[in-house]
């Protein structure tokens, strides 16, 4: 077999892994529904006559065994049917359009947070690493440690009460779509983004600082210095790239925490994103919708991590070799 075949097999293996995780996580949620102390029928079947009742049970696949029930859901999901909210009147409200409205808002939130966090933490991480051990590093590092420990909802509440209510610089509640005025949009996102970004900046800066300090001790940095390169050149050509691998990997892993964070933050700031939808689905016991939401988040997370793995392969050729081996 030639190396191309091996690469192809490696890619296949990788994809298979992703599929296993996605199927596993959705199956997990689906089986979770079996743990409900109430029968699904009691929750979702409201027809008065027996014929209508049977019809609804068949429609919602409630008569199937747990595995078949999951497979029906999976079949629908793959075809783009994410299930429905089921109302006592028997009316089905499909999830897809609601998802279509909510998902972009949450994605915006998460992407803004990542951009802000990386934009601040990269220079800060490098600065503190180069000043390592001196007073400015110690002050910043302790501050960041504290900030990383404070839950994002604490920041959300403090920011909302201070900048939103007391100073009234930003709207404390609500969301403005970019179409309705971009400046207003940014203003409405400012506090939620800050609330999520502060602990994130703290985490990223610490990671980058640690890695840059470790890289600066490497022989190849001394080697670069012994070639007569300037400090700035050494930083950009020799230090930054190997040091950034952990940062970008954990930025990807952090997507999960951020998505979890949006649940709470959207609730606090009344932003109609995925977090609010999930809250609503749980509150009104819409478990079919919940299953699909969890599936979407898990897929997004796994696929995103796969992409970052590939990207890291470009930054750090060693990892490419490792994942192939």
């Amino acid at each position, binding site marked *: *077999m030639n190396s191309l075949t*091996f690469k192809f*097999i*490696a890619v296949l293996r990788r994809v298979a892994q992703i599929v296993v995780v996605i199927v596993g996580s959705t199956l997990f949620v689906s089986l979770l529904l079996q743990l409900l102390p109430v029968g699904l029928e009691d929750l979702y079947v409201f027809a008065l006559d027996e014929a209508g009742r049977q019809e609804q049970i068949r429609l919602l696949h409630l008569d199937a065994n747990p595995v078949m029930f999951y497979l029906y859901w999976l079949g629908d999901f793959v075809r783009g049917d994410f299930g429905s909210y089921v109302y006592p009147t028997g009316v089905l409200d499909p999830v897809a359009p609601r998802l279509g409205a909510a998902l972009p808002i949450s994605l915006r939130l998460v992407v803004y947070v990542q951009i802000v966090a990386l934009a601040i933490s990269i220079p800060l991480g490098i600065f503190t690493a180069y000043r390592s051990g001196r007073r400015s590093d110690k002050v910043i590092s302790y501050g960041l440690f504290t900030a990383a420990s404070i839950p994002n909802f604490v920041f959300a509440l403090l920011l909302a009460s201070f900048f939103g209510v007391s100073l009234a610089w930003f709207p404390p509640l609500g969301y403005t779509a970019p179409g309705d005025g971009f400046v207003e949009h940014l203003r409405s996102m400012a506090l939620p983004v800050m609330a999520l970004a502060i602990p994130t900046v703290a985490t990223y800066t610490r990671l980058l600082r640690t890695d840059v300090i470790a890289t600066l001790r490497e022989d190849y940095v001394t080697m670069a210095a012994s070639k007569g390169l300037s400090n700035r050149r050494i930083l950009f050509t020799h230090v930054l790239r190997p040091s950034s691998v952990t940062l970008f990997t954990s930025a990807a892993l952090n997507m999960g925490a951020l998505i979890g964070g949006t649940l709470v933050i959207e609730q606090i700031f009344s932003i109609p994103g995925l977090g609010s939808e999930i809250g609503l689905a749980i509150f009104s016991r819409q478990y079919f919708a919940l299953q699909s939401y969890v599936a979407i988040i898990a897929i997004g997370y796994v696929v995103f991590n796969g992409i970052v793995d590939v990207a890291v392969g470009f930054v750090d050729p060693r990892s490419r070799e490792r994942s*192939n*081996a």
Partner: protein
Amino acid sequence: MAGSGTAHMRNNDEVVLEVRDLVVEFKIGRGLVVNAVSKVSFDVCRGETLAIVGESGCGKTTLGKAVLQLPPPKSGDVVFEGTNLTKLPKEQLRSARTAMQMVFQDPISSLDPRMTVRALVEEPLWIWERGTEEERGAKVRELLNNVGLDPDLVLNRRSYEFSGGQCQRISIARSLALEPRMLICDEPVSALDVSIQAQILNLLQDMKDRYGLTMIFISHDLAVVKAVSNRIMVMYLGKVCEVGSPDAIYSKPAHHYTSALINSVPIPDPTRKRGAVPLQGEPPSPVAPPSGCRFRTRCPAATELCAAEEPQLREVNPGQYVACHHPRT
């Protein structure tokens, strides 16, 4: 080198360990297999020190561990005092291993950092429930004394408080606790400073005499090997090149690889200039070893025959065996 064969095997009552056609392979993913040890045979007589010499990747360490079935080899036999270890059930193998103990290359990594010296040296006795608490304590003190450590000073300290040389002493004390009949030393001095190396080598000699040990001494350092061994086996890329007494091997090496190896060792004497050109190139990957003689890609005497046919070990001088189609004369 590189060949196989059993011409060098001795068949007498003194043979304690006999290894035949041992094969060890590692899967490294992507369907690739490292041929770490390929059909190696050797034997060791009672009271003898067999040195296994070669450069990194030649399979010497893997071979040493495979004798102890760590991990078990893919094929071949390891017969120790008449028992074939490769065929033993797990529990019997466990107790058979106590007669052969190992000293490792990295003295610090081979001692559990959380344990005191007392616990470390006592551990083998604990495993096999040998003696009472007091008897074990006395045995530990005796062992530490024998390896040149003062029990009162070291018993309650942990390995990271010691230098590499002292750790190696503790490690040797531990390996002797079960009173093994054979000691396998895997590069026991290569992680140590020059001035400490000699101390440990002398200690190993002393222990060999005191406990009547048979030894396998694995090393990359020909000079070290010369000082300690009765018989030398030179390996290259998972195969045996040459087997013989130290005097024969050093004074008239028959294999081109052995000769290159000897010529590469720097001699601390500026008046002795080397005429020989160093060996060119580096060992090929053990994943895809060359056909025929595995040394042929770097050998100055290689011919088409070497690519076509694997040389078998044969006797060139009394007691000196070489696996080469065109041995040096």
